């Protein structure tokens, strides 16, 4: 583990302004409020939650696609607020890269694999054509593609192979951090295992830090060191993976875990029923945002919004966890 954290996030917020009409005041949508974490080299932070809980917003902030509204974010020791534009694009874009969910949508169908992989090098480095080609081939072999694939188009590949191309593209600038946005959810089980193995090997070999966004808890349990559970833009539970999975504290984490089906026929479990769906983030419930779906909710939960507090190994945002 290196001495300084590759990602240091403190109380990150992101609000979007929604125009509601010409004469009506604009509304603000809290896509993310109050995410804090440290991520070190060689470690994996998993971000879990239902769709609409702010996972992808967090990914957009980390990959510098968008600026946080409030809070402090430093990548590889550079504080983003103090860094100027040039420094950001020169240094940080090398440092952090992303792999997207859908390998059918994230690769340009009109470019050959070689061109897809070279493009980051053309934009960000001074390498000549031969050097670029060597680097591309080296990485293609590393992710399990063959040399002759360099002249093929994305439609000639299966989903698993495409995801390998996407991973190679993310790694070509030798980043230190890779944000993986549901990298295996579009793949079949057997292919999913191949891609997960590749990701784990690459991490061990290159000392990468992963931010792994997923809603598949069995995959998260397997790959993550730390887990951050989010609900409606707010972190509700955070801690070491084992602690969170073995002893979930927050009722939402408990419900998520019990909703995840398990490939085990012996155990017929009593499922915690989550009724209803995620409320609209434009009109979040008062107090604890989980209270309308929480089976333990008390009158207090409707009034007081809980904050993250340390309980043993994990931090939890719940009034009832003592």
């Amino acid at each position, binding site marked *: 583990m290196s001495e300084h954290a590759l990602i240091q996030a403190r109380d990150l917020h992101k609000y979007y302004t929604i125009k509601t009409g010409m004469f009506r005041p604009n509304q603000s949508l809290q896509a993310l409020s109050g995410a804090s974490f440290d991520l070190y080299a060689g470690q994996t932070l998993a971000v879990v939650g239902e769709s609409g809980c702010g996972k992808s917003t967090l990914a957009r902030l980390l990959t510098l696609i968008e600026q946080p509204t409030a809070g402090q974010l430093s990548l590889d020791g550079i504080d983003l607020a103090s860094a100027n534009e040039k420094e950001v694009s020169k240094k940080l874009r090398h440092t952090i890269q992303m792999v997207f969910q859908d390998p059918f949508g994230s690769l340009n169908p009109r470019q050959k694999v070689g061109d897809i992989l070279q493009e980051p090098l053309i934009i960000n480095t001074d390498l000549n054509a031969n050097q670029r080609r060597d680097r591309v081939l080296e990485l293609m072999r590393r992710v399990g593609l063959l040399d002759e694939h360099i002249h093929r188009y994305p439609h000639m590949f299966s989903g698993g192979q495409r995801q390998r191309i996407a991973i190679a593209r993310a790694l070509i600038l030798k980043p230190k951090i890779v944000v993986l946005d549901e990298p295996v959810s579009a793949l*079949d089980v057997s292919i999913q295992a191949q891609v997960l*193995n590749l990701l784990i090997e690459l991490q061990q070999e290159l000392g990468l830090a992963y931010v792994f966004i997923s809603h598949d808890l069995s995959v998260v*349990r397997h790959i993550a060191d730390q887990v951050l559970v989010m609900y409606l833009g707010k972190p509700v539970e955070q801690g070491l993976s084992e602690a969170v999975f073995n002893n979930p504290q927050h009722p939402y984490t408990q419900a998520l875990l*019990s909703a995840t089906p*398990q490939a085990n026929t012996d155990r017929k479990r009593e499922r915690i029923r989550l009724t209803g769906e995620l409320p609209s983030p434009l009109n979040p419930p008062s107090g604890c945002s989980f209270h309308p779906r929480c089976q333990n909710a008390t009158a207090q939960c409707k009034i007081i919004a809980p904050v993250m507090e340390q309980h043993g190994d994990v931090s939890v945002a719940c009034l009832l966890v003592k």
Partner: protein
Amino acid sequence: MALLEITNLTVEFATAHGSLRAVDQVSLSLDAGDIVAIVGESGSGKSVAMLALMGLLPWTATITADQMSFDGKDLLTMNPKQRRAIIGKDISMIFQEPMTSLNPCFNVEYQISEVLAQHFGGRRRSYKHRVIELLEKVGIPAPETRLKAYPHQLSGGMSQRVMIAMMIACEPKLLIADEPTTALDVTIQAQILELLVELQKANGMALVLITHDMAVVAETADRVVVQYAGQQVEQRSVTELFNNPRHPYTQALLSALPEYAKEKTLNAIPGVVPGQLDRPVGCLFNPRCEHAQDLCRQQPPERSEGILCHYPLPLKSALNAASTSHTEVIT
């Protein structure tokens, strides 16, 4: 007599590169009240087999079967009009993408009452109360307010509930759910699966669940059919299959799950499902199978005890006694 009886169903598509056999000699027998899951990777012909049953395949498909009968009626010789009277009424199907399977131009009430008016006659409007009752049944809160909602105003879970309401409107005897929860969040997935099983119990209908998620199978189904490249490789009861998979493909599928991993590296199955042009000789699974031998590479296997394999894995009860001899066979 079984509710649904399919023997040796084969579906071939005429393509530019010759004929493609998407479903190869699939048999399935279902009684009322059964829950059967069909699992397999994409391209294994799970959906195509069921679409053939529904008669929803395009004209390029050639469907042959020794027998395909539903509730005593022969589906093979039936004319389209007779088939339409059954489809949607006695057999109905829920599709994977709830967002795209609803018609965006019509509201919820219109789409559900259309099914009822089609099969039971009368005017659509006269079914308003029935529609409210159905929406209530599938767990949509305040159904009266949702009647006039259009699909884009509903979330994924809601749309899937509307789809289910539409499909159970005529109280079908057989419901086919094609990956009903793949596009949904885990919490919503749990709700939908619970709802399907509840409805299945209440109406005593048979349920066919097509999925690639082994965990979903373990929690809902009674019987499992494992399909690979169009062929049924194993058909067993769910507890037997999970505790003692007999076909190497089933075993490989199960051990590729992160839950079963004992170490950081997962037991991935190398390679991919064969396509139209690279079908192997002999057993279709042999290039990816860790137990494959010469015989597997030359001759397609025969089915015995519901398992399509030359060298099925041993039964667990006989495992201890036979473990030594079996390792000899493998090595």
